[in-house]
Every structure is written in structure tokens, then in C-alpha cells.
């Protein structure tokens, strides 16, 4: 089948458009990166576009010397790792009985899960409930509200349902109980779906903003996103520790740029390895509608 000239032109046009569109998606990032590596004077003279000028690491040195930023960083790493593990455990434990027809409460609970997904509670009663169980100004609020997501639960339940029954029946005849069944047979065979859900939970935990904003007052427990927001919006927080800005090679803007990139680095590092799982997960979700 030979493609006509017009069609080939069309495909070329579409390709060029998409390439331009993807460059546009990346350009703001590149501009921020080059700002973070440029000196204050060239930035102020509007000379920095897509490449650092008067290359300097001073903004980065300043950022990296901020203990409060590192504290937030490690707090967020910790809550993300612990939260993701807990979330996977919780989701698997709940999804497994829900995938079994012999679990009598299954259908009722599934209806509840779907209701929980469709009807979102207004934020204020949610706030009051979470506060009343002692999570106000408590760092656990960075973990506990995120350890079960109805959507992810349904994905995992669907996956468990597809398991061949014969395997389990054979194991049961050997006297294997449900707990051993789940942890020794089912979970080791569910690595793909676990990886996908780990990423979904991980991204939410890493990027969370609303919960800490609503529930945390103590600056010691500020996670990375809140800290970054403080740096971006409040120059006095960011410039704390600098006596005068006259002789410095950085200013608010280069520091802000470095802070933003600082928070993106972990995502950029893990992203290429995990992209296929993200996509797979999104497809799993779409099959369910």
C-alpha cells in the first residue's frame, strides 16, 4: 500500500507539531534549570534563556547548606517510603478477601467502596473527623489518610480475581491457609501490579500538599512541598541566613529556581525506570472505567 503524497505531508506535519509540543512541555523546565546555574547579575540583565550564563554553583551551594530543607526532604522520603509500604500491605490485605466469592461481606463492601469513590465528603467534616482522631499537628497525617485508595483497591482486586483457581485449590489441599496463600503465592506473583500501585501511592505521598497545609502547624513537620512553597512565596524564609545580598552571586530568583529543581530531581531520576509501570497502571484503571 503506497501512501499518497498528501498523506505523507500530513503525517510529517503532525510529527513536527508533536515534536514542537513536547519541546514546549520541556522548555519551562530547562529555563528554570539554567536560571539555577547562572549568576545573579546575568539573570537580572534578562540574559538567561535556555542555557546557563556565567555558570555558578552558588545558588545550589546555598540550597544544599540549608538544614531545614534537608529535614523536609528526608521527612518526605521517609513518609513516602513507609506510606507506600503500608499502603501496599493495606490494599493487598483488603483486596484479597474482596476477590474471593466465599467472603460473604464482599459485595456489600464493594458497593461501599464505589460510594466512597463517587461521593466525596465535603472537606470541612473530613477535616474535623481527622482532627478528632488526633492527627492534627501530628506527622502521621502525612501517612495514614493515604494508605488506602478505593481506585487502587479496585485495580488490585481485579488483578487478584484473574488468578487461576487451580493453583489455590492445590495449595489449600496441602493445608495452606489464606494468610500464607496471600503472602507466599499471590503477592510474589503480583509484582507488576504491586509496582504500578507503589508508584501511584508514592507519587501522591511525595507530592501531597493539601493535608500538610490543613493539618500541620509545627514547622518541624513541614514536608518538602510545603517547604518549597515557603521558599517560593516568602523571600524572608528563603534568604534566612544571608546577611546582605550585595556581594552574593545569587538572588531570590536563582535560589527559587534551584529549590524547584531540587524537589524535581528525585522524580527525574526514578521516572525513566518506572514509566512503563505508570502507563500500565493507567491502562488497568481505564479498563475498569
Amino acid at each position, binding site marked *: 500500500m503506497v*501512501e499518497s503524497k*498528501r*498523506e505523507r505531508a*500530513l*503525517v510529517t506535519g503532525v*510529527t513536527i*507539531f*508533536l*515534536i514542537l*509540543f*513536547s519541546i514546549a*512541555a*520541556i522548555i*519551562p523546565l530547562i*529555563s*528554570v534549570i539554567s536560571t539555577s546555574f547562572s549568576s545573579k547579575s546575568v*539573570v*537580572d540583565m*534578562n540574559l538567561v*534563556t535556555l542555557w546557563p550564563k556565567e555558570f555558578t554553583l552558588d545558588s545550589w551551594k546555598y540550597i544544599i547548606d540549608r538544614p531545614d530543607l534537608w529535614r523536609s526532604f528526608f521527612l518526605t522520603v521517609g513518609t513516602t517510603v513507609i506510606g507506600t509500604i503500608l499502603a501496599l500491605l*493495606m490494599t493487598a*490485605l*483488603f483486596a484479597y*478477601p474482596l476477590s474471593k466469592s*466465599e467472603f460473604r461481606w464482599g459485595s456489600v*463492601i464493594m458497593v*461501599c*467502596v464505589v460510594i*466512597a469513590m463517587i*461521593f*466525596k465528603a*465535603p*472537606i*470541612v*467534616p*473530613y*477535616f*474535623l473527623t*481527622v482532627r*478528632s*482522631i488526633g492527627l492534627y499537628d501530628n506527622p502521621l497525617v502525612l501517612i495514614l489518610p493515604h*494508605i488506602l485508595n478505593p481506585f487502587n483497591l479496585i485495580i488490585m482486586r481485579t488483578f487478584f480475581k484473574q488468578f487461576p483457581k487451580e493453583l489455590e485449590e492445590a495449595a489449600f489441599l496441602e493445608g495452606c491457609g*489464606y*494468610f500464607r496463600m496471600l503472602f507466599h503465592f499471590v503477592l510474589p506473583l503480583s509484582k507488576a501490579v504491586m509496582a504500578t500501585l507503589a508508584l501511584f501511592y508514592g*507519587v501522591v505521598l511525595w*507530592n501531597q*500538599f*493539601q493535608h500538610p497545609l*490543613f493539618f500541620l502547624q509545627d514547622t518541624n513537620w513541614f514536608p518538602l512541598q510545603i517547604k*518549597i*512553597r515557603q521558599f*517560593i512565596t516568602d523571600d524572608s524564609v528563603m534568604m534566612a541566613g544571608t546577611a546582605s545580598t550585595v556581594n552574593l552571586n545569587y538572588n531570590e*530568583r536563582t535560589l*527559587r529556581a534551584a*529549590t*524547584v529543581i531540587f*524537589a*524535581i530531581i528525585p522524580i527525574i531520576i526514578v521516572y*525513566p525506570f518506572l*514509566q512503563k509501570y505508570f502507563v500500565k497502571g493507567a491502562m488497568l484503571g481505564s479498563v475498569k472505567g
Partner: protein
Amino acid sequence: MKVFAFHRLKVYWPLYVMAIPGIVFLIVFKFIPLGGAVIAFKDYSVFQGFDDSPWVGLKHFKTLFDHPDFARVFGNTLMLGFLKLVLVFPFPVLLALMINEIRKSALKKGIQTALYIPHFLSWVIVGGILFDFFSLSGLFNIVIGWFGLEPVLAMQESDYFRPIYAISSIWRDAGWGTVVYMAAISAIDPQLYESAMIDGASKLRQVRHITFPLLLPTVLVLFLLEIGNFLDLGFDQVFNLLTPMTYSVGDILDTYVFRTGIQQAQYSFATAVGLFQSVIGFILVFVFNKLSKKVSDGGLW
């Protein structure tokens, strides 16, 4: 019968034990707050809780509808919701149709990777990038300077808020939104294209008469979900793009609830706002679901 029940329990008890943490979670984090929405009709007091606070009927809704802020906040929300639906929603569909036409798989992968990345950045970060991009010495002002235009602080300018809202939504999420459509496209039977080609149908006609019609049910379902979230614009996004200078156009129901409910502790009043938002969303889904069933077979239920 009793023996049977006992037997069931003896064998199946682990399933029930496993489900307990999940059930507790659903009750605490989903259903108690959902039930707590009744405080929209009460005068909530911290000491009396959801159940025992006194009923006041529609008092808070009356205050809400009489409030001068309400018209502005609701108008802003409608405006942004409308922009999201009309400008932002079609983007992933068009992108998916275009990406599908690219044959070189390395190029396709590269484009997809570039388009997906922004989705994984938080709105704090996206806000930070935008504030940098639109700052006086930022790339935007440098580029418009080349054309001899005066620099503008777009993030602090109320005229620019809505376009920035729409563009940032597209920038962050349009690429990621293609994933679902790409999955739907890849599920289309290749034989359809083969027979179309034998009949001499051009690329454009194939897209128009095969890909697009078969993609439509997916588009419809996602459109309905989007309608349900019509007033639910995403607190994180608006909050992180907002500056005091853009309040007049950027203050929406979500930020209003945050200010009145969480910061000023007007719990019942802010719950009434939230409930109003949910009810409108539910009515919209219901109406459009009915409509879409009339037009085609699709629909959510």
C-alpha cells in the same frame, strides 16, 4: 445449619480478619466525614460533635446565597470549570489521535516521555516554575521583549489568570490524559483499517470513520466524569497559582472553603458551601448521563 456456620468461620476467618483494617479505614476516612456533612444543616460546635449539635435548617445556605462573596466565587468557579471542559478536555483526544499516526517507535516513545513528565510534578513545583517563567527577568518577558512588547507580570495580573489556569492544566495533564485514549485506540481491530485501505480510504478518512467513532465511547465516559468534577477544580492548582492580585478572578469554591472553614473555623457554613458543590456536581452527572444515553448507548450507568 449451625454446624455449617461454624465450619465457615473455622475455614474462612482469615478473610474477615484481613478485611478489618480496610473497613476501619473506609469508616473513619470516608463514611464518618460523609455523614458529617449534616453539619451544613446544624450549628456545629466542637464540644457537641456531628450528632449533638443543634439543627438550624437551611440557615447556612441562606447566609451563603445572600453573601456578596458567593456570586463572585461561584462565578469564578463556573468560568474556570467551563474553560477546563471546553479548552482543556479535548486536548488529550487530539494528541492521542496525532501520536497514533507516528510510525517511528523511538520518536513516539520520546514524545510520550516528554509529554508525561509534567504530570508527576506537584502543583507547588508547577507554580514555582510558572512564577519563574513569568517573572520580570523570566523567559516569557525576555521573548516578548524581542518583539518590542512591554514586560508584564502575568502571574500578578488578573487578566492573565484564566489563560494561565487553562495553559497550566494542559501543560501538566494533557500528555498524561492521552494514556487512556491510546489504550482505547490500540484495542481497535486492525482488520478494520486493512479493509478500509483495500477500499481506498485515505488516512484522514480512516481517522474520521474508524478511529474517532470507536474512541467516542471512551471520550464520553471521561467527559461525564469530568462534568461530575465541574466545580471541583483542584485546590492545589488554584491555590498555588493564586496571588493577592488575582483574587478577584481566581478565588473559587475550594479556596473559599479553605479560608472560611479551615482558617476562620466557620465549620457549618463552609460545609454548606462544600455540600452545595457536591450536589451540583451530582446533578450535572445525572443530567448529562441521561442525555448521553439518549444520544448514544454510552453512559456511566
